[in-house]
Structures are given as structure tokens and as C-alpha cells.
């Protein structure tokens, strides 16, 4: 009873705080200082059409590197938790972690299998397209990586016993990450600072090969994110 009252009190309090925010909220009427700078100078400084990409990859590149690290950490953590030592049979009672699912897993239907064999590569290519064009149109490494990962999900669905080539996955994961950091370093050495994409020419606006190293970096991010997400999915799927 006391607990219910407390919960009600908490909700009421935060509702009141949120209400204060809503009533006081006026919304932006114009761009703030840094946003204006990005919109005005972004094109000439970085040559990217998609300013969000410019921000993500360059202006706030350190955030993105951190974000990739978070994903990497989560993948490592999940791998550590679920991969390290087989999930043994119940230690203190209860249902063993989905072991019997392995047996009950049915083979997918013929149509799904064949269909996915055709669709999966297409989706993967689409994913690549998304991150390669990240500096020009909406989308980029994260979205592209996620799309690639969804292709893999489809693969998992259609081929329940499909096993990924872990070597390739691991190498992709490691190398894309390392090269990403390496490109950042190149920015430090050749251009203005760590993760500065301008060590490659800015190029002609609107082309694939423009905006300095942004497309390269975003592609690497895409590969990395894709590999991490696939790794996570693989770990979560596998009842080890």
C-alpha cells in the first residue's frame, strides 16, 4: 500500500515536472549558434550534403567513435555473458536456457529458404548503398549496418542451422574498427585534428566521391556496426 502511494507520488511529481516543461516550451524559432554554423559552413568545410552526416562523422566524430565503442562493448559484453563457458544446464533449478529450442527448431519452408536466398544479398547491397551514400542522402553507417544485420536475420530465419563464418565476422569487426581509428589518426596527422575528414579532398558537392573521407569513414562505421549487430544477434540466437 505504501509502495503504491510512493509510486503514485513519484509519477505525480514527474508528471508535474513534465507539465512545467510542456507549458514553458516554446520550441526553437531559429537555429542556434552551432547549428547555424553547420548549416552555413558545413558545405564548404566538409562538402557533405547531409549535414547530419557531417555532424555525426566529423564535427561530433568523437561521439560517434564513442557510439561505435558502445556497440562494440555491448557486443563484447554479450559475447562474454552468453559465449563464455557454455550455458550449462540449470545450476539452481529452473528451465535450462532454451536448450530444447535447439531440438524443436523446425526447418524453414522451401519457399522462405529460396526466397531469402535471393533477397538477402539484395538487402545487403541496399545496406551498403545506404552507408556509401550517407553524406548525400539520409542514412549512413548505422542505418546501413542495421540493414545488413537485418539481412542476416532473414538468413537466420530461413536457415535455422545456418552458422556464420566467425573468422570473417571477427576480422571485419576488428579491421573496420581499427581502420576507422587509423583514419582518425590520419586526420590528426594530415589535417586539423583527430577524426578530421579533410585529409582527402572535399571534392565536388553531391558526388559519391566527395566530402573528404566522410564516405570512407561512414562505410567503415557501417561495416563495423553491421558486424557488431550481427555478432549480437548471433550470440542472442545461439542457445550455445
Amino acid at each position, binding site marked *: 500500500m505504501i509502495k503504491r502511494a510512493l*509510486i503514485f507520488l*513519484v*509519477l505525480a511529481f*514527474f*508528471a508535474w515536472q*513534465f507539465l512545467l*516543461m*510542456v507549458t514553458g*516550451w516554446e*520550441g*526553437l524559432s*531559429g*537555429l*542556434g549558434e*552551432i*547549428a*547555424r554554423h*553547420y*548549416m*552555413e559552413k*558545413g*558545405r564548404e568545410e566538409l562538402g557533405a*550534403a*547531409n*549535414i*547530419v552526416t557531417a*555532424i*555525426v562523422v566529423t564535427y561530433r566524430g568523437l*561521439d*560517434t567513435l564513442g*557510439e561505435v565503442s*558502445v*556497440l562494440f*562493448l*555491448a*557486443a563484447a*559484453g*554479450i559475447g562474454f*555473458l*552468453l559465449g563464455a563457458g557454455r*550455458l*550449462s544446464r*540449470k*545450476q*539452481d*533449478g*529452473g*528451465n*535450462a*536456457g*532454451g536448450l530444447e529450442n535447439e531440438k524443436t527448431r523446425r526447418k524453414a519452408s522451401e519457399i522462405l529458404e529460396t526466397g531469402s536466398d535471393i533477397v538477402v544479398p539484395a538487402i545487403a547491397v541496399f545496406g551498403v548503398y545506404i552507408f556509401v551514400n550517407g553524406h548525400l*542522402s*539520409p542514412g549512413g553507417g*548505422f542505418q546501413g549496418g542495421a540493414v545488413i544485420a537485418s539481412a542476416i536475420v532473414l538468413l537466420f530465419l530461413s536457415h535455422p542451422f545456418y552458422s556464420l563464418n566467425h573468422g570473417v565476422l571477427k576480422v571485419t569487426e576488428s579491421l573496420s574498427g581499427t581502420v576507422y581509428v587509423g583514419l582518425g589518426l590520419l586526420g590528426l596527422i594530415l589535417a586539423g585534428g583527430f577524426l578530421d575528414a579533410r585529409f582527402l579532398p572535399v571534392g565536388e*558537392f*553531391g558526388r559519391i566521391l566527395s566530402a573528404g573521407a566522410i564516405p570512407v569513414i561512414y562505410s567503415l562505421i557501417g561495416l563495423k*556496426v553491421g558486424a557488431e549487430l550481427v555478432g*549480437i544477434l548471433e*550470440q*542472442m540466437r545461439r542457445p550455445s
Partner: protein
Amino acid sequence: MKAVLVIGLLLMLTGFYGLMTRRNMIKMVLSVAITEVGLQMVMITAGFIRGGTAPILTEDITELASFVDPVPQALVLTAIVIGVAVNALMLAFIIRMYGKRGSLDVRDYTDSKW
């Protein structure tokens, strides 16, 4: 666009409610996910400018004021990825805990206390 703001904040409150009342660990993570969606909506609203378009430049640069703020979008991008990563990690914890004790009830995991 106060409507979006209100929806976002309502979702956050719903998430808080779930986090406080649910005992099923998966539902707790779902509550976190709901809260995060709400939060991201608030964040997007914070960058919204009435009449603005997506911050993607075209060959013929138009009036600057006609864009929405790109910065919150970049932040939300990061927030989404981080949120999902953490949720996945929490689920991994749950899977492993379930393997130990065969329960999803958070009250069954109070080994360390006081």
C-alpha cells in the same frame, strides 16, 4: 509540435511506471525501451523548427532558416544506438540469470542486500 512533446513525455512516464511496478525483468527492459522512445521523441522535438525541412543541402542552397536543427538529430542517432546496445546487454544478463535460476522475476534475485 507540442503534441509530439506531450506524447514523448507521456511515454516516458509510462516507462517510469513500468520500471517501478513490473517484476518481470524482460518487462523492465521493455519499460526502459519505452522510456527511451519517449525521450528520443522529446529530443527530436527540441530540434524542430516550424516550417523547416530535413537538414540535407541541395545544389541550390535555399534559405537557411528553412531547415530544422540537425544537431539534436545527430544526438538522437547516438542515443538510439546506445539505448539498443544497453538493452541488448541487459537482455543478455537476463538470459544468463534465467539459466541460473529459471526465473524472470526480479524478486528471485536478491542475493546481495543490506
